[in-house]
């Protein structure tokens, strides 16, 4: 169940695997969100609150309540978070906070309750998907990118050959950038292009070579998959037997430390022209 939270939490290790493999999620229902949303308010109260907020609060605290001209973000405010229906907000609104530059407002308890309902209708948390509307990520110089591509990628790839129409195939610019940097989504497998699997050649002590798809490797064993779906495991002891790993993305991996951000943005600007 950790996968849901994987990307967003501060303490997750890089390859947080769900539990220990064994039994993860067994017998569990779907987990509720860590911090529940408030129950939806009466739509009429929300409408009234929105109108009042727009007139009275919007200028200082922002139309999204995340702060504005002089006024702080209300969504993360201790008072707002602990308020139910205006009872904690009301004293601040009705008395003002003169030292902090907030005037008092002549609003009734009922009006403040409506405003509270409106403020409480915003999603509270780091990730608000409705805000994730990035502008285009393409900022680079396509001509420079084409040059860079010819010099560094051209021995394997060609804009008129294997990558012809790549920007049509991968219409999302960010996905295109991620894909050319490391096809297959970084860990092999998923992604808009099919990456051949990592394979390995094992040389047994008597000289026999075994080839296959690399299923698993650690310091003690190596497991290869064969064409008919079977698996063969060999014990490892230091350098014996010899294991050669063939990573189809080795060239991509090797280039990663060499890119400047400008190189990346330029190549992407070039590749998006390959419709």
């Amino acid at each position, binding site marked *: 169940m950790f996968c849901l939270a994987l990307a967003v939490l501060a303490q997750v290790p890089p390859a947080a695997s769900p539990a220990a493999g064994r039994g993860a999620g067994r017998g569990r229902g779907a987990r509720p969100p860590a911090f529940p949303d408030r129950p939806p308010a009466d739509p009429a109260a929300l409408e009234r609150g929105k109108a009042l907020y727009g007139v009275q609060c919007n200028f200082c605290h922002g139309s999204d309540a995340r702060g504005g001209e002089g006024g702080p973000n209300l969504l993360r405010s201790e008072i707002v978070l602990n308020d139910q229906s205006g009872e904690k907000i009301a004293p601040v609104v009705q008395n003002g906070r003169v030292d902090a530059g907030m005037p008092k407002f002549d609003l009734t308890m009922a009006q403040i309750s409506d405003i509270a309902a409106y403020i409480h209708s915003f999603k509270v948390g780091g990730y608000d998907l409705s805000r994730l509307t990035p502008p285009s990520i393409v900022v680079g110089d396509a001509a420079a990118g084409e040059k860079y591509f010819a010099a560094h990628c051209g021995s394997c790839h060609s804009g008129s050959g294997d990558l012809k129409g790549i920007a049509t195939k991968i219409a999302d610019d960010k996905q295109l950038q991620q894909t050319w940097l490391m096809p297959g989504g*970084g860990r092999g497998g998923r992604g808009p292009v099919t990456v051949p699997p990592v394979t390995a050649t094992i040389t047994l002590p008597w000289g026999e070579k075994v080839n296959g798809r690399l299923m698993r490797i650690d310091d003690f064993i190596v497991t290869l998959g064969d064409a008919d779906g079977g698996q063969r495991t060999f014990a490892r002891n230091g350098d014996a037997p010899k294991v050669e790993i063939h990573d189809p993305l080795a060239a991509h991996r090797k280039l990663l430390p060499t890119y400047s951000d400008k190189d990346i943005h330029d190549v992407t600007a070039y590749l998006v022209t390959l419709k």
Partner: protein
Amino acid sequence: MTRTRALLLWAAALLPAISAAQMLDPSLLTKPLGESGWPTYSGDYSGKRYSHLTQINQSNVKNLTLAWTVRVTAGVDGGGGGRGGFGFANAIPTIVGGEAAELSGAFAGAPNIRASILEVGGVLYLSSPDNAWAVDARDGHVLWHYFWKTKGGTHIGNRGLGMWGSWLYMETPDDYLVCLDEKTGKERWHKETANFNQQYFSTMAPVVIGNHIIIGTGNDLDEPGYVQARDPETGDVQWTFYTVPMKKGDPGAETWGSIDGARHGAGNVWIPGSYDPETHLYIFGTGNPSPAYTNPPSRNGDNLFTCSIVAINVDTGKMAWYYQVNPHDTHDWDSTEAPILVDGAFNGKPRKMILHADRNGYFYVLDRLTGEHLLTSKFSDTANWASGLNAKGQPMRILTKDSTVPGSLVSPNNGGATNWQPPSYSPDTGLMYVPTSDVYSMYYLTETDPRGAMGLGGKDEQMLASMGSYLRAIDYKTGKVVWAHQYPGFSGGVGNGMLTTAGKLLFAGDAGGNLVSYDAANGKILWHSRLGQISNAPETYMLDGHEYILVVAGDSLFAFTLY
């Protein structure tokens, strides 16, 4: 021999095992880790995770064998511990506590135990979010199970229990400190420690120092992190230390764009710190500033005391010194990784030091009496976000390596070059052992309104590739990586925490699910056993003349020994 006499002898032989009250003698806490069990998070206060036990050593570790294993189950039906089918069911009723109105089955099932386990008087005490267990250290049978009905909160991990006398202390994801009777698991009291409405959640293992229960909390919504000392008898607050300035004129206030920004600047407290009994300083690492990935005007400055090593006097709660390892962090690289107290020579002079390997890829040595900076070095081969070190030894962040709309190629990834998995230090080798990972990610800025982001929002981090995961051994005198063992493959997995012993051994969970024993001097592999993804740091204790090595893989405990 008469039957009565035989019975008496039998009873006498059992006495040590059944003198049920496992009172924790507080003097054990200041003894070097070894015969005294494992009475606190890191075994002792130093954070070294170095045991003086030598029964298991380089000459015999190859004969290490499984003594017992047990699988535990979380939730209201979690008692017994026999669910895996070890013969007869020794069902133990679960003791249920908690403030939630109803019981959510969603938090039941197989726990992922990322805790340090206490060993006191032949009993193991362990935890996962909402759950605590006592387990017999001789054979692994569950003595009791306690389950906390949760209101919610982020259930990412629980780092363990604290013990004072015959009482155990646990923090919960919905922000309570729960006090349990170690004999029965029955609840003595629980106290609210942070505000759930403000999205606090608590993961730390309480650290018991004298008559103080040290706890910490944090959140992913811009609220201030803090450390508290609580009374062990009543749970009442003794002092509170906020890790960020809370009002005008507070130390560090000038390192924020506004007081409102500072008060919403996080600096969360996730992981237990270390304690120096000589100076009464509790020394811990603070979390990152918030919002974590963006640069609103409210964050203008270095953002003290986030991403810092902070020393506070345990009696007063007042800060003695701080050193900020990562000014104005913009990648959610908190600095909560355990600081290690080491006494030794530095530049030819005896020093009392702190060693710290940070999520940002850098290693630091400080003088722990004064906070004086002694050394910074880069242990990650790929870390590319800083242009160098300033006069204070702090990495200087490259502004274009913040999250940007077209994307910035950055290493480490968000998970960091290292993380909460505990490191270890061996005085035999003078090396600090750190689980590390070299990963590149693209960091995209998605919130271009500087006011807009809260918490961990405002960015989209997409991993590219791992360049390798390594167990790295760092010489504190030079900051250099003396040896590194690369885990085969490119999974990016970091393995888990470390244990060193006077048997000249280093134990660690690797990235492939093995518990491995290495020669601490050079990383040569001496023994291993595949258990599944190791989820905590190995520990050791002595019982009935046998040294045990204890580790957890998810929901299962494994104890190894020599016969």
